[in-house]
C-alpha cells in the first residue's frame, strides 16, 4: 500500500467510503420505502423477473437498503454489509446493462420513480458509472473493513489492538 502507508489514513479513507456508500444506499432505500408499489413497478420495468417475484423484490429491497445503509454509516458489521452492498451493486449493474442492451427505455428506479421514460431521457452510462463507483467503495470495505469511528471498533476493543501489544511486549523482553 504505497499510496497510504499510514494505517490511520487508511482508516480515515475507510470512514469516507463507508459514509459515501452507506449514505447513498440509505437515501435510495428511504426514497423508496414509502412507495412500495412504485418500487415493485420499477423492478417490473426491467422485465427480468416473473411478475410476482418482481413484486417481492420491489417491496423488500427498500428496507434491505435502509438496513445496509444504516449499518455502513454506523460502521457495524462493515465487512458483511459491504459484501451485501457490493452484491446489490453487481445486480443493479447487470440489470441496467441488460435493460440498455435490450433497448428498453426505463429509469433505473434507483432513487424512486422508475418505469418507462422517453428514450432521450435514459441515463444508462451515468447510472452504471455511479454503481461501479459504489461497487469500488464496497470492494475496499469488504477487503479492509477497518475504518475510523466505527461501532465495529467499540464492539471488539481488545481483539486486534491489545493482542498485538501483549505480543510485542513479550517479544521485546
Amino acid at each position, binding site marked *: 500500500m504505497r499510496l497510504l502507508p499510514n494505517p490511520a489514513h487508511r482508516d480515515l479513507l475507510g470512514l469516507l467510503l463507508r459514509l459515501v456508500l452507506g449514505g447513498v444506499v440509505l437515501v435510495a432505500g428511504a426514497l423508496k420505502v414509502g412507495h*412500495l408499489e412504485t418500487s415493485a413497478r420499477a423492478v417490473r420495468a426491467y422485465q427480468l423477473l416473473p411478475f410476482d417475484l418482481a413484486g417481492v423484490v*420491489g*417491496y423488500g429491497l427498500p*428496507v434491505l437498503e435502509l438496513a445496509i445503509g444504516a449499518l455502513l454509516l454506523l460502521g457495524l458489521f462493515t465487512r458483511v454489509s459491504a459484501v451485501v452492498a457490493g452484491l446489490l451493486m453487481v445486480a443493479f449493474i447487470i440489470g441496467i446493462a441488460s435493460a440498455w442492451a435490450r433497448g428498453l427505455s426505463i429509469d433505473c428506479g434507483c432513487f424512486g420513480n422508475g418505469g418507462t421514460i422517453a*428514450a432521450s431521457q435514459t441515463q444508462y452510462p451515468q447510472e452504471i458509472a455511479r454503481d461501479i463507483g459504489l461497487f469500488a467503495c464496497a470492494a475496499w470495505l469488504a477487503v479492509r473493513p477497518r475504518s475510523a469511528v466505527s461501532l465495529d471498533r467499540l*464492539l471488539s476493543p481488545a*481483539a486486534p489492538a491489545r*493482542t498485538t501489544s501483549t505480543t510485542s511486549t513479550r517479544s521485546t523482553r
Partner: protein
Amino acid sequence: MSKATADRKAADRRAKIEAATAQQRRAATTKIVVAAVVVVLVIVGVVGAVLLGSSDKQAATTAGGSALPKGAAAMGAGIVVNPGAPANVPTLDLYEDFQCPVCGEFERIFGVQLKDLVRQNQVKLVSHTLSFLDDNLRNDSSNRAANAAACAADAGKFLQYHAAVFQGQPAKEGTGYTDAQLEDFAGKAGITGGAMTTWQTCYKDRTHNQWVESVQTQSEKDGVNGTPTVKLNGETLSLSGLTQASLADKIKAATK
C-alpha cells in the same frame, strides 16, 4: 534473576493473558448477540415490507364493486370506445393515467384527432385508464378519476369524460382531483338528469373499482411501465417526433 522472581513473572503473564482472553470472549459474545439482533431486525423489516406491500395491494384490488364498465370485455381489458369499428381498421391502445402531465399534453395534441378518428370509425380505440401515479404522488386521484371515467363509460360518454378530465388537469402534478371536480367533469361531458344520478351512485359506490385495479395490474403484466403508452395493433409507437400527420399515416398504413 531468582527462581521466585521468574515464577512470579510467569504467573503475572499468565494472569494477564487469561484476563485478555476472557475479555475477548466477552467481546465476541456481545458481537454475536448484536449480530443476531441486527439480522433478526433486517429479516423482520424486509419480510414485513413484503407482507405489507402485498396486503395493501390485496386490499386495493378487492375494494369496491367488481362490475365491468360498458365497453370493457373482461377484467384487465381496456374500454373499447367504439365497438362498432369495422374489422379492417387497426386497434389503437391508449394507456394513460389521468394525473400524468405528459398524457395531458398528448391529449392536447392528439385528442381532437382521436375523437374524429373514432367518430369516423377509422380506428378502434381502446383506452386503459391506469392509476399507478397514486403511489408516487401519495394521493388516490388517479384511481378515483379512473373510477369516474368508468362510470362515464356506462353513460356512453367515456371519451367526452376523458377529454374533460385532461382539460381540467391541474397545472402542478400531484394536486389531484376533488370529488366535486370529478362530478363537474361529468356535467361537462354531457351527463345530465337521470344519467347524472346513475353516475353519482356508480362513482360513490366505486362500482368498477376492481376493474380499475385489474387494468393497472394487467398493463404491468403487458410490460406497460409508463404513460402515455400508445400501441397500434399491439406495437408500441415512439412518441418522440410523433405528429398528427405521422399518426394519421401510420393508421392509414395499418388499415387493411
